[in-house]
């Protein structure tokens, strides 16, 4: 399998878009302009961008909360995301939800329920539907290293394995679950070992190399799409911010951060593109400029958007409301 130049540039664009969007969110948070918390994927953007970009239009993503790249790639705009953070009516959920607890079926993104790994079985169910209906669509479901300790991880993986469903399970192993390091989460070396329990083949990829993530995902998607069943992909990376923007992550050894800083996924991609003369500095700067503008516009849009009305909160409980006479 190889990858086209325009795809490489698109990957770069989405890495940048994700980074700049979340950096902006971080600033807004520190300015006190975001109501609730703010979680970013800083340092790990290659995971969501890589697996998100490898999806085809009719596929479905069942993401978790550090998957900003997926939301953007699928078509949930930066505008709606900043509006979401600000609690605006134009946010992805009209203000019902904050931050990345979102989804939009128009773009093939299942909502992320805060409860980690709930989306593993849910994703498997979407894959089941595709298989039952003979559709050539696949699902990519993602969770964090922490999420792999949950029962729903187990039940979702096992169900998908038994029914050989067209789903690929991704794990963003950023080495911490909030403050809890891997060694207090599991007694194995690689999270990929978890997949052995289900007879699901697994791969370990450099989660800071967006091309590697993309290629691994594409390959696994092809297998799934052709009836080969699930794959588990462990992306090894490192969370470079605190768990959320209020957390200074003092519990993470500074050396570890220093080490991973050098492996930054955007720097990595820039180097890759330039050293292989795929793109010149100026071209990348051009992309960055585009991104910058897009984020600025998104912010203006969000700022100018109205807040929902108090009554809006009373609407939408049921898809089929029960009429009171």
């Amino acid at each position, binding site marked *: 399998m190889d990858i086209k130049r325009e795809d490489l540039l698109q990957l770069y664009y989405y890495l940048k878009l994700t980074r700049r969007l979340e950096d902006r969110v971080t600033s807004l948070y520190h300015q006190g302009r975001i109501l609730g918390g703010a979680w970013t994927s800083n340092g790990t953007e290659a995971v969501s961008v890589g697996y998100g970009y490898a999806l085809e239009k009719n596929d*479905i993503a*069942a993401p978790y909360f550090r998957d900003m790249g997926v939301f953007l790639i699928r078509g949930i705009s930066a505008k709606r995301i900043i509006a979401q953070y600000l609690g605006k009516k134009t946010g*992805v*959920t009209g203000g*019902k*939800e904050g931050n990345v*607890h*979102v*989804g*939009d*079926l128009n773009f093939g993104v*299942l*909502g992320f*329920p*805060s*409860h980690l790994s*709930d989306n*593993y*079985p*849910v*994703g*498997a*169910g*979407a*894959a*089941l*539907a*595709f*298989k*039952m209906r003979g559709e050539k669509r696949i*699902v990519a479901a993602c969770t964090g290293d922490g999420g792999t300790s949950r*029962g*729903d991880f*187990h*039940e*979702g993986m*096992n*169900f998908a394995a*038994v*029914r050989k469903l067209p789903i690929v399970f991704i794990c963003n192993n950023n080495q911490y679950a909030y403050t809890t390091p891997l060694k207090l989460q599991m007694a194995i070396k690689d999270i990929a070992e978890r997949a052995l329990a289900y007879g699901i083949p697994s791969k370990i990829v450099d989660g800071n190399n967006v091309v590697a993530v993309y290629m691994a995902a594409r390959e696994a998607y092809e297998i799934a799409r052709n009836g080969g069943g699930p794959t588990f992909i462990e992306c090894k990376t490192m969370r470079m911010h605190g768990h959320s923007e209020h957390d200074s992550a003092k519990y993470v050894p500074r050396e570890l951060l220093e080490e991973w800083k050098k492996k930054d996924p955007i720097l990595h991609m820039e180097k890759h593109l330039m050293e292989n003369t795929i793109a010149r500095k100026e071209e990348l700067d051009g992309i960055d400029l585009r991104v910058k503008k897009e984020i600025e516009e998104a912010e203006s849009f969000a700022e100018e958007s109205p807040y929902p009305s108090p009554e809006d909160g009373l609407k*939408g*409980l*049921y*898809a*089929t409301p*029960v*009429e*009171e*006479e």
Partner: protein
Amino acid sequence: MKEITYLEAIKEAMDEEMTRDSSVFILGEDVGVYGGAFRATEGFIEKYGEWRVLDTPLSESGFTGAAIGSALVGMRPIVEMQFADFISCAFDQLVNVAAKNHYRWGASTPIVVRAPYGGNIHGGPYHSQSIEGFFFNVPGLKIVAPSTAYDAKGLLKAAIRDNDPVIYCEHKYLYRRIKDSVPEEDYIVPIGKARIAVEGNDVSIITYGAMVHTALEAARELKERGVSCEIIDLRTILPLDKKSILNTVKKTNKVVVLHEQTKTGGVGAEVSAIISEYCFEYLDGPIVRVAAPDTPVPYSAQMEEAFIPQPKDVISAVEKLNRY
């Protein structure tokens, strides 16, 4: 019209809906080759194949989650809990995923979770629970609990066609013990509508599920003693049919609320609260609840019989109230 049992009604509803709509399918433990612990899906796998009648691994959260995911992309799954008691393992998926999808991000989750519930079958603490209380304070879910074959069929069809997650409480005690008439043609019983099981003037008995039959027995006896009871069968528990509740109170002015569920925090508390909030001035006496005591469901016959509300308990509550 034809006479069928409560269990046959459930079976027919699923069968007809699966024939009508190819997006309807069933999953759960042992629903395939065996046709389910209570044989509600007997013969289905032969008829619909193993991809529409799925025997799942023993993992309630996993297969409920899978049902939700399939529903989000257009399917209409029916999840069978082997016993309602095991729904506790799927609690998170139901409460935090299914119930909140539509409110949070506008996605409809048309799943039905069949929950064979209730006691009086010597099942002990883990095979007799009434589970409606787990979900009664969870906005976004619907809960139904039929008491007749007619309603069992019509409500299940309505639940399958509904676009929201519905917990369908089917009372195990009624499966083969009751029989009544259902039309030959397609029909539904709308979610959210109670029915008047018996009209009467002196005291209202508001109830649902197997207790409707307990109420009927009590009412027959009371009639002989000259007390006329109106029995309201709620049918839908969430959301409650407020109007039917208030109407009967306005008529009789005296209310007994009856359920098999344990008393504290039961559906009866809400019924009572609705009444005293919205038609207090019509009340001619206290609102009396007849319900199971606040314990798990014991196994031994002596203790279980004392646990489950009996006609005599209803009779004495009604008589006391009638004398008030």
